[in-house]
């Protein structure tokens, strides 16, 4: 692997890992506060899967980088500008409908991505993807189902889900925007071109929203920046909590 490719692969792996880490963090904020016990369980389970995937992606990122950073080092000792997650996953939880909608929009992309990655030219990537895909298939099944039921539920639940969709929609475009990093890993056969995932995602989202009686927004504006380290103001606060102990107690053993 050339140095350039290695750097691109590292960046790309951080994107995968950071998406899982930050979404897992957001989901875990619900712990003990969800509308019904079954959801407490399901959310904890989702967060747990995502943190597990974080360990795999960031662990591999550290290996690829070869600078002695392991998954924890990457998770706990980078500041916001070094994080590579898409903005979607750092959006505040809002109400439970907003949390579910964010989960569905992400899961639908995540599933497409992991499917494609199982054919990666890098065996380690393919292996992680295969493991994660099993978990994410379940996440997607669950979030799609809930979006449908709540969209086509009461007037109130419909209103909330439509609002969530409208609010989150401008954060979905980034999932499919490619840059030099994406081109490099795509050229090496490691990962798909992000744009190639859009058709499948769009179809699934359209189907689910139709069944949920929700209207897919058409406004073209889309946020971006997360993949390059330009985040929203929310991320700094997430990291202040997440990293407190590691930052406050250097040399601690946990």
């Amino acid at each position, binding site marked *: 692997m050339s140095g350039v490719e290695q750097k691109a692969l590292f960046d790309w792996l951080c994107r995968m890992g950071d998406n899982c880490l930050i979404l897992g963090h957001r989901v875990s904020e619900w*712990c003990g*506060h969800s*509308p019904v*016990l079954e959801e407490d369980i399901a959310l904890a389970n989702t967060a747990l899967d995502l*943190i597990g995937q974080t360990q795999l992606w960031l662990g591999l990122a550290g290996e690829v980088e070869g600078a002695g950073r392991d998954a*924890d080092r990457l998770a706990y000792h980078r500041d916001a500008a070094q994080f590579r997650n898409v903005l979607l996953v750092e959006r505040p939880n809002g109400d439970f409908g907003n949390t579910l909608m964010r989960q569905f929009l992400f899961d639908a992309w995540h599933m497409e991505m992991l499917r494609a990655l199982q054919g990666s030219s890098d065996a380690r990537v393919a292996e992680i993807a295969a493991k994660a895909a099993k978990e994410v298939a379940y996440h997607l099944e669950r979030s799609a189902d809930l979006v449908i039921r709540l969209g086509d*539920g009461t007037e109130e639940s419909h209103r909330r889900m439509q609002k969530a969709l409208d609010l989150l929609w401008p954060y979905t475009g980034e999932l499919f925007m490619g840059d030099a990093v994406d081109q490099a890993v795509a050229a090496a056969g490691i990962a798909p071109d992000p744009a190639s995932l859009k058709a499948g995602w769009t179809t699934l989202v359209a189907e689910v929203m139709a069944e949920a009686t929700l209207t897919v927004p058409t406004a073209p504006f889309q946020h971006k920046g997360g993949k390059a380290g330009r985040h929203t103001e929310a991320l700094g606060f997430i990291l202040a*909590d997440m990293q407190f102990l590691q930052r406050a107690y250097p040399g601690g053993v946990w």
Partner: protein
Amino acid sequence: SEQERAFQDRIDRGEKIEPKEWMPEGYRKTLIRQIGQHAHSEIVGQLPEGNWITRAPTLERKAILLAKVQDEAGHGLYLYSAAETLGVSRDELLELLHNGKMKYSSIFNYPTLNWADIGTVGWLVDGAAIMNQVQLQKTSYGPYSRAMIRICKEESFHQRQGYDILLKMCLQGTAEQKEMAQDAMNRFWYPALMMFGPSDKDSVHSAQSMQWKIKINTNDELRQKFVDQTVPQAEYLGLTIPDANLKWNEEKGGYDFSEPDWDEFFEVINGNGPCNAERMEARVTAWEDGAWFRDGLMAHAKKQEARRASARMAAE
């Protein structure tokens, strides 16, 4: 009565009582109270530990804590199901929790203030809970006993994970980390002892519950067992138990120790603990804010049912 005597005979023979079978009203009520409180404790118990999930110091610790909190919610589910076999729904029990008519374990009214608290809660609080629950595997009500068998398996796992946090902090950690652990011990020792309930002589329900084998051991027996088990573990960690009277008693083959402050216990039970108001507010808010969600799912289910019905009609 005849029925009551026959019932007590079955209990004395060690038979399990099953949901559809006759039971005295007092037995049913006591079980509902006990199982309900236990279920509530599991769900309120998510809060003090959940408080540190976003701040867990490593990815592995975060994953372990998430799994633990997930287990607790699961235990809540088993227990509400066990209570439902006695004719009371989960929603009814939750309403009693939310309006303050039912309690949860008062230990969860204490805050978790540093990461060592998470270890300590696992070690001492789950440790005390297990001590209670192990005996309850032999309880006379079948569904409760079976729930306890499942729960005990997971809990002992939690206790070991909690102890492991402290092993790391106390034996491999920095001086600051060890201080955290001692601070946690200082705050949790007596509240953990309180978990077994008041001394047998002051315990209202104990005698009848033991006769019905809803409880197997007395509060004081369990507390003694807990202390005897815990002291050497604390010594291994190098932590000091905050009790000047703690001393091995060769004669009784166990430790002598100070009673917790029972005034504090009753204060906390009655709402005046450090976190009672927050815990209840968190649960009630979750429930109220989630009403639209539950209503939405219900409405969807009805729509689906109606659609299926009209599809059947069309097909006929």
